[in-house]
Protein backbone atom coordinates (compact mmCIF):
# COMPACT_ATOMS: atom_id res chain seq x y z
CA UNK A 1 0.00 0.00 0.00
CA UNK A 2 2.03 2.98 -1.14
CA UNK A 3 0.72 6.47 -1.15
CA UNK A 4 1.69 7.28 -4.71
CA UNK A 5 0.19 4.11 -6.13
CA UNK A 6 -3.03 4.75 -4.25
CA UNK A 7 -3.27 8.32 -5.43
CA UNK A 8 -2.60 7.19 -9.00
CA UNK A 9 -5.38 4.62 -8.71
CA UNK A 10 -7.60 7.39 -7.39
CA UNK A 11 -6.65 9.76 -10.17
CA UNK A 12 -7.37 7.13 -12.80
CA UNK A 13 -10.88 6.79 -11.36
CA UNK A 14 -11.58 10.46 -10.88
CA UNK A 15 -10.12 11.57 -14.19
CA UNK A 16 -12.46 9.35 -16.20
CA UNK A 17 -14.65 11.63 -18.35
CA UNK A 18 -17.85 10.74 -16.47
CA UNK A 19 -16.42 11.37 -13.05
CA UNK A 20 -14.63 14.52 -14.13
CA UNK A 21 -17.94 15.84 -15.42
CA UNK A 22 -19.71 14.92 -12.17
CA UNK A 23 -16.99 16.58 -10.13
CA UNK A 24 -17.31 19.71 -12.24
CA UNK A 25 -21.10 19.60 -12.11
CA UNK A 26 -21.10 19.12 -8.35
CA UNK A 27 -18.73 22.02 -7.73
CA UNK A 28 -20.72 24.23 -10.11
CA UNK A 29 -24.17 23.46 -8.70
CA UNK A 30 -22.79 23.56 -5.17
CA UNK A 31 -21.38 27.04 -5.73
CA UNK A 32 -24.58 28.14 -7.44
CA UNK A 33 -26.77 27.16 -4.48
CA UNK A 34 -24.16 28.02 -1.86
CA UNK A 35 -24.02 31.59 -3.14
CA UNK A 36 -27.68 32.09 -2.28
CA UNK A 37 -27.81 33.74 1.10
CA UNK A 38 -29.12 31.58 3.89
CA UNK A 39 -28.35 28.27 2.26
CA UNK A 40 -25.26 26.76 3.84
CA UNK A 41 -23.44 23.58 2.84
CA UNK A 42 -25.63 21.34 4.99
CA UNK A 43 -28.85 22.54 3.39
CA UNK A 44 -27.29 22.46 -0.07
CA UNK A 45 -26.05 18.90 0.25
CA UNK A 46 -29.38 17.81 1.74
CA UNK A 47 -31.32 19.38 -1.11
CA UNK A 48 -29.14 18.04 -3.89
CA UNK A 49 -28.85 14.53 -2.48
CA UNK A 50 -31.59 13.19 -4.79
CA UNK A 51 -29.63 14.27 -7.86
CA UNK A 52 -27.13 11.54 -7.06
CA UNK A 53 -29.53 8.64 -6.47
CA UNK A 54 -29.29 7.44 -10.03
CA UNK A 55 -25.54 7.69 -10.39
CA UNK A 56 -23.04 4.88 -9.78
CA UNK A 57 -21.73 5.05 -6.16
CA UNK A 58 -18.27 6.48 -6.96
CA UNK A 59 -19.77 9.16 -9.20
CA UNK A 60 -22.39 10.00 -6.59
CA UNK A 61 -19.80 10.50 -3.86
CA UNK A 62 -17.54 12.53 -6.12
CA UNK A 63 -20.46 14.76 -7.04
CA UNK A 64 -21.61 15.16 -3.44
CA UNK A 65 -18.11 16.04 -2.29
CA UNK A 66 -18.02 18.61 -5.11
CA UNK A 67 -21.38 20.04 -4.04
CA UNK A 68 -20.07 20.23 -0.49
CA UNK A 69 -16.90 22.21 -1.11
CA UNK A 70 -18.56 24.21 -3.86
CA UNK A 71 -21.24 25.41 -1.47
CA UNK A 72 -18.62 26.12 1.15
CA UNK A 73 -16.88 28.39 -1.33
CA UNK A 74 -20.15 29.95 -2.45
CA UNK A 75 -20.77 30.88 1.17
CA UNK A 76 -17.56 32.90 1.24
CA UNK A 77 -18.57 34.81 -1.87
CA UNK A 78 -21.84 35.88 -0.22
CA UNK A 79 -19.98 36.77 2.96
CA UNK A 80 -17.57 39.04 1.11
CA UNK A 81 -19.98 40.61 -1.37
CA UNK A 82 -23.08 41.22 0.73
CA UNK A 83 -21.84 40.70 4.29
CA UNK A 84 -24.26 37.80 4.71
CA UNK A 85 -22.64 34.60 5.93
CA UNK A 86 -24.33 31.68 4.19
CA UNK A 87 -23.24 29.43 7.04
CA UNK A 88 -21.55 29.74 10.39
CA UNK A 89 -18.07 29.01 9.03
CA UNK A 90 -18.20 32.13 6.83
CA UNK A 91 -19.02 34.43 9.72
CA UNK A 92 -15.42 35.46 10.29
CA UNK A 93 -14.83 35.93 6.58
CA UNK A 94 -17.47 38.65 6.70
CA UNK A 95 -15.44 40.73 9.14
CA UNK A 96 -12.44 41.50 6.96
CA UNK A 97 -13.75 40.25 3.62
CA UNK A 98 -16.64 42.68 3.51
CA UNK A 99 -14.43 45.45 4.88
CA UNK A 100 -12.14 44.84 1.87
CA UNK A 101 -15.15 44.91 -0.43
CA UNK A 102 -16.19 48.30 0.93
CA UNK A 103 -12.70 49.55 0.09
CA UNK A 104 -13.25 48.41 -3.48
CA UNK A 105 -11.09 45.34 -3.06
CA UNK A 106 -13.85 42.71 -3.27
CA UNK A 107 -12.11 41.03 -6.20
CA UNK A 108 -8.87 40.68 -4.28
CA UNK A 109 -10.70 39.26 -1.28
CA UNK A 110 -12.49 36.70 -3.47
CA UNK A 111 -9.26 35.70 -5.21
CA UNK A 112 -7.49 35.36 -1.87
CA UNK A 113 -10.31 33.21 -0.54
CA UNK A 114 -10.19 30.98 -3.61
CA UNK A 115 -6.43 30.57 -3.65
CA UNK A 116 -6.15 30.02 0.11
CA UNK A 117 -8.89 27.39 -0.15
CA UNK A 118 -7.07 25.72 -3.03
CA UNK A 119 -3.83 25.50 -1.06
CA UNK A 120 -5.61 24.18 2.04
CA UNK A 121 -7.60 21.72 -0.05
CA UNK A 122 -4.56 20.21 -1.70
CA UNK A 123 -2.58 19.89 1.54
CA UNK A 124 -5.51 18.34 3.39
CA UNK A 125 -6.28 15.90 0.61
CA UNK A 126 -2.73 14.58 0.86
CA UNK A 127 -3.16 14.42 4.64
CA UNK A 128 -6.30 12.29 4.23
CA UNK A 129 -4.41 9.96 1.93
CA UNK A 130 -1.57 9.63 4.48
CA UNK A 131 -3.61 9.43 7.68
CA UNK A 132 -6.60 7.43 6.47
CA UNK A 133 -5.08 3.95 6.17
CA UNK A 134 -3.28 3.85 9.55
CA UNK A 135 -6.40 5.13 11.27
CA UNK A 136 -8.45 2.46 9.58
CA UNK A 137 -5.93 -0.07 10.90
CA UNK A 138 -6.54 1.19 14.43
CA UNK A 139 -10.26 1.02 13.86
CA UNK A 140 -10.07 -2.65 12.93
CA UNK A 141 -8.90 -3.37 16.48
CA UNK A 142 -12.05 -1.70 17.84
CA UNK A 143 -14.67 -3.81 19.55
CA UNK A 144 -18.26 -2.77 20.24
CA UNK A 145 -17.32 -1.08 23.52
CA UNK A 146 -14.73 1.09 21.76
CA UNK A 147 -17.24 2.02 19.11
CA UNK A 148 -19.79 3.08 21.70
CA UNK A 149 -17.22 5.24 23.47
CA UNK A 150 -15.98 6.73 20.22
CA UNK A 151 -19.53 7.62 19.17
CA UNK A 152 -20.17 9.19 22.55
CA UNK A 153 -16.98 11.20 22.14
CA UNK A 154 -18.14 12.29 18.70
CA UNK A 155 -21.56 13.30 19.98
CA UNK A 156 -20.10 15.21 22.93
CA UNK A 157 -17.69 16.83 20.49
CA UNK A 158 -20.64 17.93 18.40
CA UNK A 159 -22.04 19.67 21.45
CA UNK A 160 -18.93 21.82 21.72
CA UNK A 161 -19.59 23.03 18.20
CA UNK A 162 -23.20 23.92 18.76
CA UNK A 163 -23.55 27.44 20.02
CA UNK A 164 -25.79 28.28 22.88
CA UNK A 165 -26.86 25.94 25.60
CA UNK A 166 -25.01 22.66 26.15
CA UNK A 167 -28.08 20.97 27.61
CA UNK A 168 -30.16 21.93 24.58
CA UNK A 169 -27.54 20.50 22.22
CA UNK A 170 -27.54 17.26 24.20
CA UNK A 171 -31.33 17.23 24.10
CA UNK A 172 -31.16 17.60 20.31
CA UNK A 173 -28.84 14.58 20.12
CA UNK A 174 -31.32 12.63 22.24
CA UNK A 175 -34.19 13.67 19.98
CA UNK A 176 -32.17 12.46 17.00
CA UNK A 177 -31.58 9.12 18.72
CA UNK A 178 -35.29 8.88 19.44
CA UNK A 179 -36.20 9.53 15.80
CA UNK A 180 -33.67 6.91 14.69
CA UNK A 181 -35.60 4.27 16.65
CA UNK A 182 -38.80 4.72 14.67
CA UNK A 183 -39.52 1.54 12.73
CA UNK A 184 -38.94 -2.16 13.16
CA UNK A 185 -36.35 -3.22 15.72
CA UNK A 186 -33.86 -5.47 13.93
CA UNK A 187 -33.36 -7.84 16.83
CA UNK A 188 -36.86 -8.46 18.09
CA UNK A 189 -39.01 -7.45 15.15
CA UNK A 190 -41.02 -5.16 17.43
CA UNK A 191 -42.26 -2.01 15.76
CA UNK A 192 -41.40 1.11 17.72
CA UNK A 193 -42.93 4.59 17.51
CA UNK A 194 -44.74 3.79 14.27
CA UNK A 195 -48.24 4.81 15.46
CA UNK A 196 -49.48 1.83 13.46
CA UNK A 197 -48.53 3.50 10.18
CA UNK A 198 -47.12 0.92 7.76
CA UNK A 199 -45.13 3.68 6.01
CA UNK A 200 -43.05 4.00 9.17
CA UNK A 201 -42.23 0.29 9.57
CA UNK A 202 -38.94 0.78 7.72
CA UNK A 203 -38.07 3.79 9.81
CA UNK A 204 -37.88 7.42 8.91
CA UNK A 205 -36.01 8.11 5.71
CA UNK A 206 -32.98 10.22 6.04
CA UNK A 207 -33.77 12.49 3.09
CA UNK A 208 -37.11 13.99 4.23
CA UNK A 209 -35.64 14.55 7.69
CA UNK A 210 -32.54 16.36 6.41
CA UNK A 211 -34.46 18.34 3.79
CA UNK A 212 -37.16 19.38 6.22
CA UNK A 213 -34.83 20.34 9.07
CA UNK A 214 -32.30 22.14 6.91
CA UNK A 215 -33.91 22.98 3.56
CA UNK A 216 -37.50 23.95 4.39
CA UNK A 217 -36.62 25.49 7.74
CA UNK A 218 -33.96 27.65 6.07
CA UNK A 219 -36.42 28.81 3.43
CA UNK A 220 -38.97 29.78 6.06
CA UNK A 221 -36.37 31.67 8.12
CA UNK A 222 -35.00 33.48 5.07
CA UNK A 223 -38.50 34.52 4.00
CA UNK A 224 -39.21 35.76 7.48
CA UNK A 225 -36.09 37.91 7.38
CA UNK A 226 -36.10 39.26 3.83
CA UNK A 227 -39.68 38.80 2.60
CA UNK A 228 -38.26 37.77 -0.77
CA UNK A 229 -36.20 40.70 -1.99
CA UNK A 230 -32.86 40.54 -3.81
CA UNK A 231 -29.52 41.83 -2.48
CA UNK A 232 -27.35 44.75 -3.47
CA UNK A 233 -23.79 43.64 -3.93
CA UNK A 234 -20.35 45.25 -3.76
CA UNK A 235 -18.68 46.09 -7.08
CA UNK A 236 -15.70 44.10 -8.26
CA UNK A 237 -12.88 46.13 -9.76
CA UNK A 238 -9.68 44.13 -9.88
CA UNK A 239 -9.30 40.44 -9.18
CA UNK A 240 -5.57 40.04 -8.70
CA UNK A 241 -3.84 40.50 -5.36
CA UNK A 242 -0.84 42.82 -5.33
CA UNK A 243 2.63 41.60 -4.34
CA UNK A 244 2.16 43.12 -0.89
CA UNK A 245 -1.14 41.21 -0.49
CA UNK A 246 0.51 37.93 -1.38
CA UNK A 247 3.31 38.52 1.10
CA UNK A 248 0.80 39.07 3.88
CA UNK A 249 -1.66 36.34 2.92
CA UNK A 250 0.79 33.50 2.32
CA UNK A 251 1.93 32.73 5.90
CA UNK A 252 -1.62 33.23 7.14
CA UNK A 253 -2.82 30.64 4.64
CA UNK A 254 -0.29 28.07 5.88
CA UNK A 255 -1.18 28.67 9.53
CA UNK A 256 -4.87 28.52 8.73
CA UNK A 257 -4.44 25.24 6.88
CA UNK A 258 -2.64 23.58 9.81
CA UNK A 259 -5.17 24.88 12.31
CA UNK A 260 -8.13 23.81 10.18
CA UNK A 261 -6.79 20.34 9.43
CA UNK A 262 -6.08 19.64 13.12
CA UNK A 263 -9.50 20.82 14.26
CA UNK A 264 -11.24 19.08 11.40
CA UNK A 265 -10.02 15.63 12.41
CA UNK A 266 -11.35 16.02 15.95
CA UNK A 267 -14.80 14.57 16.42
CA UNK A 268 -17.26 17.41 16.53
CA UNK A 269 -14.73 19.77 15.04
CA UNK A 270 -15.33 21.23 11.66
CA UNK A 271 -15.29 24.24 9.44
CA UNK A 272 -16.77 26.67 11.96
CA UNK A 273 -14.40 25.87 14.77
CA UNK A 274 -11.46 25.90 12.35
CA UNK A 275 -12.21 29.30 10.87
CA UNK A 276 -12.81 30.95 14.25
CA UNK A 277 -9.61 29.48 15.71
CA UNK A 278 -7.54 30.49 12.68
CA UNK A 279 -8.87 34.04 12.80
CA UNK A 280 -8.03 34.51 16.46
CA UNK A 281 -4.59 32.97 15.90
CA UNK A 282 -3.88 35.48 13.13
CA UNK A 283 -4.99 38.32 15.33
CA UNK A 284 -2.64 37.08 18.04
CA UNK A 285 0.47 36.65 15.89
CA UNK A 286 -0.07 39.86 13.92
CA UNK A 287 2.08 42.86 14.78
CA UNK A 288 -0.85 45.13 13.93
CA UNK A 289 -3.92 43.43 15.41
CA UNK A 290 -5.84 46.69 15.11
CA UNK A 291 -5.97 46.20 11.32
CA UNK A 292 -8.32 43.24 11.75
CA UNK A 293 -11.91 44.06 10.99
CA UNK A 294 -10.72 46.94 8.80
CA UNK A 295 -9.95 44.83 5.76
CA UNK A 296 -6.84 42.85 6.71
CA UNK A 297 -6.12 40.30 4.01
CA UNK A 298 -4.84 37.78 6.59
CA UNK A 299 -8.31 37.88 8.09
CA UNK A 300 -9.66 36.45 4.83
CA UNK A 301 -6.84 34.07 3.93
CA UNK A 302 -6.51 32.29 7.28
CA UNK A 303 -10.17 31.46 8.00
CA UNK A 304 -10.86 30.54 4.38
CA UNK A 305 -7.88 28.17 4.36
CA UNK A 306 -8.93 26.80 7.73
CA UNK A 307 -12.54 26.15 6.85
CA UNK A 308 -11.61 24.36 3.67
CA UNK A 309 -8.93 22.32 5.42
CA UNK A 310 -11.30 21.46 8.25
CA UNK A 311 -14.18 20.52 6.01
CA UNK A 312 -11.98 18.09 4.12
CA UNK A 313 -10.24 16.74 7.20
CA UNK A 314 -13.73 15.77 8.45
CA UNK A 315 -13.65 13.04 5.83
CA UNK A 316 -10.89 11.25 7.76
CA UNK A 317 -13.00 10.02 10.71
CA UNK A 318 -15.99 9.53 8.40
CA UNK A 319 -14.17 7.32 5.89
CA UNK A 320 -11.83 5.44 8.20
CA UNK A 321 -14.04 4.92 11.25
CA UNK A 322 -17.49 5.25 9.74
CA UNK A 323 -18.33 7.88 12.33
CA UNK A 324 -19.50 11.26 11.12
CA UNK A 325 -17.90 14.16 13.02
CA UNK A 326 -20.57 16.66 11.96
CA UNK A 327 -23.91 17.03 10.24
CA UNK A 328 -22.55 17.20 6.70
CA UNK A 329 -20.57 14.02 7.14
CA UNK A 330 -23.75 12.49 8.56
CA UNK A 331 -25.40 13.43 5.27
CA UNK A 332 -22.54 11.83 3.35
CA UNK A 333 -22.96 8.64 5.39
CA UNK A 334 -26.66 8.74 4.61
CA UNK A 335 -25.84 9.06 0.92
CA UNK A 336 -23.39 6.16 1.09
CA UNK A 337 -25.98 3.98 2.82
CA UNK A 338 -28.46 4.75 0.05
CA UNK A 339 -25.88 3.40 -2.37
CA UNK A 340 -25.33 0.31 -0.24
CA UNK A 341 -21.88 1.35 0.97
CA UNK A 342 -21.01 0.97 4.65
CA UNK A 343 -18.38 3.53 5.60
CA UNK A 344 -15.79 2.22 7.99
CA UNK A 345 -12.37 0.66 8.27
CA UNK A 346 -13.09 -1.99 5.65
CA UNK A 347 -13.91 0.48 2.93
CA UNK A 348 -10.29 1.09 1.94
CA UNK A 349 -9.47 -2.57 1.57
CA UNK A 350 -12.74 -3.66 -0.02
CA UNK A 351 -13.47 -0.72 -2.31
CA UNK A 352 -10.12 0.94 -2.99
CA UNK A 353 -11.25 2.59 -6.20
CA UNK A 354 -14.18 4.18 -4.35
CA UNK A 355 -12.05 5.45 -1.49
CA UNK A 356 -9.09 6.69 -3.52
CA UNK A 357 -11.27 7.92 -6.37
CA UNK A 358 -13.16 10.15 -3.98
CA UNK A 359 -9.96 11.47 -2.40
CA UNK A 360 -8.29 12.17 -5.72
CA UNK A 361 -11.45 13.89 -6.91
CA UNK A 362 -11.00 16.39 -4.09
CA UNK A 363 -7.63 17.40 -5.53
CA UNK A 364 -9.23 17.92 -8.89
CA UNK A 365 -12.32 19.54 -7.44
CA UNK A 366 -10.27 22.18 -5.66
CA UNK A 367 -8.59 23.14 -8.90
CA UNK A 368 -11.95 23.18 -10.68
CA UNK A 369 -13.29 25.52 -8.01
CA UNK A 370 -10.62 28.09 -8.69
CA UNK A 371 -11.07 27.85 -12.46
CA UNK A 372 -14.81 28.05 -11.97
CA UNK A 373 -14.77 30.95 -9.60
CA UNK A 374 -12.23 33.48 -10.64
CA UNK A 375 -13.43 34.06 -14.22
CA UNK A 376 -17.09 33.46 -13.44
CA UNK A 377 -17.40 35.56 -10.35
CA UNK A 378 -19.43 38.16 -12.23
CA UNK A 379 -22.09 35.53 -12.83
CA UNK A 380 -22.39 34.73 -9.13
CA UNK A 381 -22.77 38.40 -8.40
CA UNK A 382 -25.66 38.62 -10.83
CA UNK A 383 -27.27 35.55 -9.25
CA UNK A 384 -27.20 37.28 -5.89
CA UNK A 385 -29.38 40.03 -7.33
CA UNK A 386 -32.19 37.68 -8.38
CA UNK A 387 -35.08 38.31 -5.97
CA UNK A 388 -35.61 35.49 -3.51
CA UNK A 389 -39.28 35.49 -4.51
CA UNK A 390 -38.26 33.76 -7.74
CA UNK A 391 -35.65 31.51 -6.21
CA UNK A 392 -37.42 29.95 -3.29
CA UNK A 393 -40.33 28.41 -5.23
CA UNK A 394 -37.72 26.72 -7.41
CA UNK A 395 -35.94 25.41 -4.32
CA UNK A 396 -39.28 24.21 -2.90
CA UNK A 397 -40.11 22.36 -6.10
CA UNK A 398 -36.73 20.70 -6.05
CA UNK A 399 -37.04 19.61 -2.42
CA UNK A 400 -40.51 18.16 -3.01
CA UNK A 401 -39.67 16.21 -6.14
CA UNK A 402 -36.39 15.01 -4.65
CA UNK A 403 -38.10 13.64 -1.59
CA UNK A 404 -40.99 12.20 -3.55
CA UNK A 405 -38.83 10.32 -6.03
CA UNK A 406 -36.80 8.72 -3.21
CA UNK A 407 -39.38 5.93 -3.35
CA UNK A 408 -42.38 7.53 -5.04
CA UNK A 409 -44.15 8.14 -1.79
CA UNK A 410 -46.22 11.18 -1.00
CA UNK A 411 -45.82 10.16 2.64
CA UNK A 412 -42.16 11.21 2.55
CA UNK A 413 -43.14 14.66 1.28
CA UNK A 414 -45.61 14.90 4.14
CA UNK A 415 -42.88 13.90 6.61
CA UNK A 416 -40.61 16.55 5.12
CA UNK A 417 -43.29 19.20 5.73
CA UNK A 418 -43.59 18.07 9.36
CA UNK A 419 -39.84 18.16 9.86
CA UNK A 420 -39.77 21.60 8.24
CA UNK A 421 -42.16 22.86 10.92
CA UNK A 422 -40.14 21.09 13.61
CA UNK A 423 -36.87 22.54 12.24
CA UNK A 424 -38.30 26.05 12.21
CA UNK A 425 -39.69 25.66 15.74
CA UNK A 426 -36.33 24.38 17.01
CA UNK A 427 -34.57 27.33 15.41
CA UNK A 428 -36.99 29.72 17.08
CA UNK A 429 -36.36 28.01 20.40
CA UNK A 430 -32.62 28.35 19.89
CA UNK A 431 -32.02 24.64 19.42
CA UNK A 432 -29.68 23.65 16.62
CA UNK A 433 -30.70 20.90 14.22
CA UNK A 434 -27.13 19.72 13.49
CA UNK A 435 -26.69 17.59 16.64
CA UNK A 436 -30.12 16.08 15.96
CA UNK A 437 -28.97 14.90 12.54
CA UNK A 438 -25.85 13.38 14.05
CA UNK A 439 -27.85 11.55 16.69
CA UNK A 440 -30.22 10.27 14.02
CA UNK A 441 -27.42 8.81 11.92
CA UNK A 442 -25.46 7.37 14.83
CA UNK A 443 -28.54 6.03 16.65
CA UNK A 444 -28.81 2.56 15.10
CA UNK A 445 -25.05 2.03 15.30
CA UNK A 446 -24.99 3.17 18.90
CA UNK A 447 -27.88 0.96 19.95
CA UNK A 448 -26.47 -2.09 18.19
CA UNK A 449 -22.97 -1.73 19.60
CA UNK A 450 -24.26 -0.88 23.06
CA UNK A 451 -26.32 -4.06 23.13
CA UNK A 452 -23.46 -6.12 21.75
CA UNK A 453 -20.88 -4.74 24.16
CA UNK A 454 -23.16 -5.49 27.10
CA UNK A 455 -23.89 -8.96 25.78
CA UNK A 456 -20.18 -9.76 25.40
CA UNK A 457 -19.41 -8.54 28.90
CA UNK A 458 -22.25 -10.53 30.41
CA UNK A 459 -24.20 -7.43 31.40
CA UNK A 460 -21.34 -5.62 33.06
CA UNK A 461 -21.63 -1.89 32.26
CA UNK A 462 -18.13 -1.14 33.58
CA UNK A 463 -16.71 -2.68 30.40
CA UNK A 464 -16.78 0.74 28.71
CA UNK A 465 -14.50 2.22 31.34
CA UNK A 466 -12.16 -0.70 31.97
CA UNK A 467 -11.06 -1.47 28.40
CA UNK A 468 -8.09 0.83 27.81
CA UNK A 469 -8.97 2.43 24.46
CA UNK A 470 -12.65 2.69 25.31
CA UNK A 471 -11.82 4.06 28.75
CA UNK A 472 -9.54 6.79 27.44
CA UNK A 473 -12.09 7.80 24.79
CA UNK A 474 -14.74 8.08 27.47
CA UNK A 475 -12.37 10.03 29.72
CA UNK A 476 -11.72 12.46 26.85
CA UNK A 477 -15.47 12.85 26.32
CA UNK A 478 -15.99 13.49 30.03
CA UNK A 479 -13.16 16.03 30.05
CA UNK A 480 -14.68 17.84 27.07
CA UNK A 481 -18.04 17.95 28.78
CA UNK A 482 -16.55 19.33 32.01
CA UNK A 483 -14.58 21.95 30.09
CA UNK A 484 -17.76 22.97 28.29
CA UNK A 485 -19.71 23.49 31.45
CA UNK A 486 -16.94 25.38 33.21
CA UNK A 487 -17.87 29.07 33.28
CA UNK A 488 -14.61 30.58 31.99
CA UNK A 489 -14.59 28.32 28.94
CA UNK A 490 -18.24 29.03 28.34
CA UNK A 491 -17.59 32.72 28.27
CA UNK A 492 -14.75 32.41 25.75
CA UNK A 493 -16.79 30.16 23.53
CA UNK A 494 -19.73 32.53 23.61
CA UNK A 495 -17.37 35.34 22.70
CA UNK A 496 -16.16 33.45 19.66
CA UNK A 497 -19.73 32.87 18.51
CA UNK A 498 -21.13 36.24 19.47
CA UNK A 499 -21.37 37.51 15.91
CA UNK A 500 -23.87 34.89 14.91
Amino acid at each position, binding site marked *: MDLLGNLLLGLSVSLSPDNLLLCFGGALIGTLIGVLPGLGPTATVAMLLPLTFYLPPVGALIMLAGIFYGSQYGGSATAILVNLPGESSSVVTCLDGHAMARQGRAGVALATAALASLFAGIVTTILIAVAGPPLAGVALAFGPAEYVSLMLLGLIGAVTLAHGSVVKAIAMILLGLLLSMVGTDVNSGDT*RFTFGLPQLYDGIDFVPLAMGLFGLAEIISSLEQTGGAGQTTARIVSLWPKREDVRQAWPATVRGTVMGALLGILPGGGATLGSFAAYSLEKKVSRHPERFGQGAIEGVAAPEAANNAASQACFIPMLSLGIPPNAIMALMIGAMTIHGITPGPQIMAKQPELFWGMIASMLIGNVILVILNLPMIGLWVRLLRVPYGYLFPAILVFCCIGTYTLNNSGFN*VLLMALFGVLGYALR*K*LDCEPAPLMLGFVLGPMLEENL*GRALLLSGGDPTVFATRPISGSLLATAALLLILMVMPSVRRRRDEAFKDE
Partner: protein
Amino acid sequence: MDLGAGLLIAAFGIGALWLGRDWPTGTLASVQSGFFPRMIGMLMVLAGALVTGRGLLIHGAAWPSWGWRPLIWVTAAVLAFAGTVETLGLVPAVLILVGLGNLAGQPLRPVPLLLLGGALAAGCVALFVWGLGLPLRVWP
Protein backbone atom coordinates in the same frame (compact mmCIF):
# COMPACT_ATOMS: atom_id res chain seq x y z
CA MET B 1 -37.44 30.74 24.80
CA ASP B 2 -35.73 28.31 27.18
CA LEU B 3 -39.06 27.61 28.79
CA GLY B 4 -40.66 26.60 25.50
CA ALA B 5 -37.65 24.55 24.45
CA GLY B 6 -37.51 22.76 27.80
CA LEU B 7 -41.20 21.90 27.78
CA LEU B 8 -40.98 20.66 24.18
CA ILE B 9 -37.98 18.46 24.98
CA ALA B 10 -39.60 17.07 28.11
CA ALA B 11 -42.81 16.44 26.17
CA PHE B 12 -40.91 14.39 23.60
CA GLY B 13 -39.27 12.42 26.41
CA ILE B 14 -42.55 11.73 28.19
CA GLY B 15 -44.17 10.81 24.91
CA ALA B 16 -41.39 8.34 24.19
CA LEU B 17 -41.67 6.79 27.65
CA TRP B 18 -45.43 6.49 27.37
CA LEU B 19 -45.38 4.98 23.89
CA GLY B 20 -42.67 2.56 24.93
CA ARG B 21 -44.27 1.55 28.23
CA ASP B 22 -45.07 -2.01 27.12
CA TRP B 23 -41.83 -2.87 25.36
CA PRO B 24 -39.60 -5.35 27.19
CA THR B 25 -36.34 -3.89 28.47
CA GLY B 26 -34.63 -7.22 29.05
CA THR B 27 -31.56 -7.41 31.28
CA LEU B 28 -28.21 -5.70 30.86
CA ALA B 29 -26.72 -8.90 29.49
CA SER B 30 -29.45 -9.22 26.89
CA VAL B 31 -30.94 -5.91 26.03
CA GLN B 32 -34.45 -5.95 24.53
CA SER B 33 -36.22 -3.49 22.27
CA GLY B 34 -37.54 -1.32 25.10
CA PHE B 35 -34.20 -0.64 26.78
CA PHE B 36 -32.79 2.06 24.53
CA PRO B 37 -36.05 4.03 24.09
CA ARG B 38 -36.61 4.07 27.83
CA MET B 39 -33.06 5.22 28.53
CA ILE B 40 -33.25 8.02 25.93
CA GLY B 41 -36.74 9.00 27.06
CA MET B 42 -35.61 9.39 30.65
CA LEU B 43 -32.55 11.39 29.64
CA MET B 44 -34.77 13.66 27.56
CA VAL B 45 -37.15 14.30 30.43
CA LEU B 46 -34.11 15.17 32.55
CA ALA B 47 -32.68 17.51 29.90
CA GLY B 48 -36.08 19.11 29.38
CA ALA B 49 -36.47 19.68 33.11
CA LEU B 50 -33.02 21.29 33.29
CA VAL B 51 -33.74 23.65 30.40
CA THR B 52 -37.19 24.50 31.74
CA GLY B 53 -35.84 25.12 35.21
CA ARG B 54 -33.16 27.44 33.93
CA GLY B 55 -35.68 29.21 31.73
CA LEU B 56 -37.90 29.90 34.73
CA LEU B 57 -35.01 31.00 36.93
CA ILE B 58 -33.14 33.25 34.54
CA HIS B 59 -35.32 34.55 31.76
CA GLY B 60 -38.85 34.30 33.01
CA ALA B 61 -41.36 33.47 30.31
CA ALA B 62 -40.52 35.21 27.03
CA TRP B 63 -41.87 34.05 23.70
CA PRO B 64 -40.08 34.73 20.41
CA SER B 65 -42.04 36.21 17.53
CA TRP B 66 -42.80 33.71 14.80
CA GLY B 67 -42.92 34.22 11.06
CA TRP B 68 -46.37 32.67 10.77
CA ARG B 69 -46.92 33.67 7.18
CA PRO B 70 -43.93 31.86 5.61
CA LEU B 71 -44.34 28.95 8.02
CA ILE B 72 -47.98 28.36 7.15
CA TRP B 73 -47.74 28.87 3.41
CA VAL B 74 -44.54 26.91 2.86
CA THR B 75 -45.98 24.02 4.87
CA ALA B 76 -49.32 24.25 3.07
CA ALA B 77 -47.58 24.28 -0.32
CA VAL B 78 -45.52 21.19 0.49
CA LEU B 79 -48.53 19.34 1.92
CA ALA B 80 -50.54 20.20 -1.17
CA PHE B 81 -47.78 18.77 -3.33
CA ALA B 82 -47.75 15.59 -1.23
CA GLY B 83 -51.50 15.24 -1.69
CA THR B 84 -51.71 15.97 -5.38
CA VAL B 85 -48.61 14.53 -7.02
CA GLU B 86 -49.98 10.99 -7.13
CA THR B 87 -53.55 11.81 -8.09
CA LEU B 88 -53.21 14.85 -10.34
CA GLY B 89 -49.71 14.31 -11.70
CA LEU B 90 -46.50 16.29 -11.69
CA VAL B 91 -47.44 19.38 -13.71
CA PRO B 92 -50.54 20.37 -11.70
CA ALA B 93 -48.75 19.52 -8.44
CA VAL B 94 -45.82 21.78 -9.27
CA LEU B 95 -48.19 24.60 -10.31
CA ILE B 96 -50.13 24.28 -7.05
CA LEU B 97 -46.88 24.17 -5.07
CA VAL B 98 -45.57 27.34 -6.72
CA GLY B 99 -48.93 29.08 -6.39
CA LEU B 100 -49.32 28.40 -2.67
CA GLY B 101 -45.60 28.90 -1.98
CA ASN B 102 -45.81 32.33 -3.60
CA LEU B 103 -48.03 33.48 -0.75
CA ALA B 104 -45.21 32.83 1.73
CA GLY B 105 -43.14 35.83 0.65
CA GLN B 106 -44.07 39.02 -1.11
CA PRO B 107 -46.39 37.65 -3.79
CA LEU B 108 -45.29 37.97 -7.41
CA ARG B 109 -47.66 39.52 -9.93
CA PRO B 110 -49.78 37.03 -11.91
CA VAL B 111 -47.77 37.12 -15.14
CA PRO B 112 -44.30 36.53 -13.67
CA LEU B 113 -45.85 33.93 -11.36
CA LEU B 114 -47.37 32.02 -14.27
CA LEU B 115 -44.10 32.22 -16.19
CA LEU B 116 -42.15 30.96 -13.17
CA GLY B 117 -44.59 28.10 -12.54
CA GLY B 118 -44.65 27.12 -16.19
CA ALA B 119 -40.88 27.20 -16.47
CA LEU B 120 -40.44 25.12 -13.32
CA ALA B 121 -43.04 22.56 -14.37
CA ALA B 122 -41.51 22.24 -17.83
CA GLY B 123 -38.01 22.03 -16.37
CA CYS B 124 -39.02 19.31 -13.94
CA VAL B 125 -40.68 17.23 -16.63
CA ALA B 126 -37.61 17.63 -18.84
CA LEU B 127 -35.14 16.78 -16.07
CA PHE B 128 -36.91 14.10 -14.07
CA VAL B 129 -39.22 12.42 -16.57
CA TRP B 130 -37.32 12.68 -19.84
CA GLY B 131 -33.79 13.09 -18.48
CA LEU B 132 -33.70 10.67 -15.58
CA GLY B 133 -36.61 8.53 -16.78
CA LEU B 134 -38.40 8.46 -13.44
CA PRO B 135 -41.80 6.81 -13.33
CA LEU B 136 -43.84 9.92 -12.57
CA ARG B 137 -47.38 10.65 -13.65
CA VAL B 138 -47.19 13.92 -15.56
CA TRP B 139 -50.86 14.83 -16.24
CA PRO B 140 -54.07 13.96 -14.35
